[in-house]
């Protein structure tokens, strides 16, 4: 936290308007799961066989200068040089979040060295039955949990990360939080799903109103035992307590195609350099305020958590909000009722109005 706080303050003091917090470094798109509806890995075989070299990874990290590096994919543990990549990032004192489905975690764990800079962020979408359905693999939950337990026992930092889609049961999600905290993880990461343009399914993604209700039901009336590895202000944004605008340059993405424009989620093209991404992207065309339909449902952490972090470390008010949010349990009677109602308050009202055609 101290590293991020000083980084943000330095950027503000030097008047830098756009700067990255987390580099989303995708070393490959290949995956050992075949999740139905996945929008990240729908590529021909020759693309799935490609991967970034360690040198390309280090160059991207040096180029953008973000203090944190997230390694999603695909499945990073399928990369034959992932140990070298992680070691190189740790040597550069970058906080590395290796995002894994943990199918190979137990097997590959001895190749890694515990470090305060390295966290395994294990994909777990919910309780056993829910997770197994979500990743289309019976037994997937048990393998992931075994990997988590081995990693915790070996002294690694471990978090879980969950994505929630339409139909998620908030009561079950809260039970899931109890389970993962019982595994000894450092914290929980969560996010609503994003409607990737390349996803086969286009009807499973919640709009903002539904997302806010779901997260209000889940995150109100918290238990003291729950720890979140996320900005408390971002969680308040998910619950509908705060309005934030997207900061797409806060989590720039780099992969075999180059620097992804404008963000980790949207693929509106690529640039060869980070500076070109920053200088030539029409940022005003993205985020909720732009009205861009591709950004309409997005409340995802890669765009909105940087905003929350910059808010938290950018003013005394933000800092106080963050401190308060860290310790609050958010008592909320209405949210309790949402848990008890059979449809969890998720009834769909008629749309307010039709789409507006607007000339840009």
């Amino acid at each position: 936290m101290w590293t991020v706080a000083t980084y943000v303050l330095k950027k503000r003091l030097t008047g830098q308007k756009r700067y990255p917090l987390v580099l989303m470094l995708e070393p490959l798109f290949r995956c050992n799961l075949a999740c139905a509806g996945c929008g990240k890995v729908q590529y021909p075989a020759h693309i799935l066989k490609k991967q970034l070299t360690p040198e390309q990874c280090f160059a991207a990290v040096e180029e953008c200068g973000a203090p944190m590096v997230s390694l999603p994919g695909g499945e990073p543990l399928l990369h034959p040089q992932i140990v070298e990549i992680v070691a190189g990032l740790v040597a550069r004192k970058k906080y590395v979040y290796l995002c894994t489905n943990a199918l190979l975690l137990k097997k590959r764990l001895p190749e890694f060295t515990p470090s305060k800079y390295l966290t395994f962020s294990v994909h777990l979408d919910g309780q056993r039955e829910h997770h197994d359905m979500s990743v289309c693999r019976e037994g997937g939950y048990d393998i992931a949990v075994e990997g988590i337990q081995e990693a915790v026992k070996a002294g690694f930092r471990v978090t879980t990360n969950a994505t929630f889609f339409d139909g998620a049961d908030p009561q079950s999600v809260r039970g899931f939080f109890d389970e993962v905290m019982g595994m000894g993880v450092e914290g929980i990461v969560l996010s609503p799903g994003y409607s990737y343009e390349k996803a086969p399914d286009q009807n499973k993604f919640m709009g903002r109103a539904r997302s806010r209700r779901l997260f209000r039901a889940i995150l109100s009336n918290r238990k003291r035992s729950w720890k979140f590895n996320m900005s408390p202000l971002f969680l308040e944004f998910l619950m509908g307590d705060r309005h934030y605008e997207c900061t797409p340059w806060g989590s720039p993405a780099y992969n075999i195609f180059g620097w992804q424009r404008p963000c980790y989620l949207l693929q509106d093209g690529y640039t060869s350099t980070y500076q070109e991404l920053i200088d030539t992207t029409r940022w005003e065309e993205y985020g909720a305020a732009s009205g861009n339909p591709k950004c309409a449902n997005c409340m995802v952490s890669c765009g909105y958590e940087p905003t929350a972090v910059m808010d938290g470390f950018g003013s005394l008010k933000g800092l106080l909000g963050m401190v308060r949010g860290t310790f609050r349990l958010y008592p909320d009677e209405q949210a309790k009722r949402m848990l008890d109602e059979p449809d969890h308050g998720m009834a769909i009202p008629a749309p307010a109005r039709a789409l507006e055609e607007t000339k840009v």
Partner: protein
Amino acid sequence: MTASAAKYTLEQIESLELAPAADHRNLEGWVPAIANDADLRNALEKAFDYRGDVTLTLKSGERIEAFIFNRLTGETLAASRVEYFTPSAPEKRSVSYAEIARVEFTGKDRAAGKQWEDWVRKYNERKAAGEKGIALTPEALD
């Protein structure tokens, strides 16, 4: 965004119950008719969005099987180009729009048939048949 994209107001965005869906028509096998510059631009934009390989035929007669991952558009076709990977070369390549005569959507749409409902239906069928360890497995890469 395109020049006349359908935009939302903030109020509409905040009240959305479900995300607006992207339009995925089945383009596999499609060979767009290209009569003018606009047709070519449109075909290459679709090729950029396509979740599989396409085959480009250049005016020189050369045919290129490619996964198009980027397009850089300018005022003229000569000032516009697509960037792509081919199955046989490790490096990124690019070609000017002005050199392209024909676009064919020859590769498999890699997301087609992978809907959530299909998985749930298959799962229930296999479960009912007494199967254990039910899973979807990634397609072989070779």
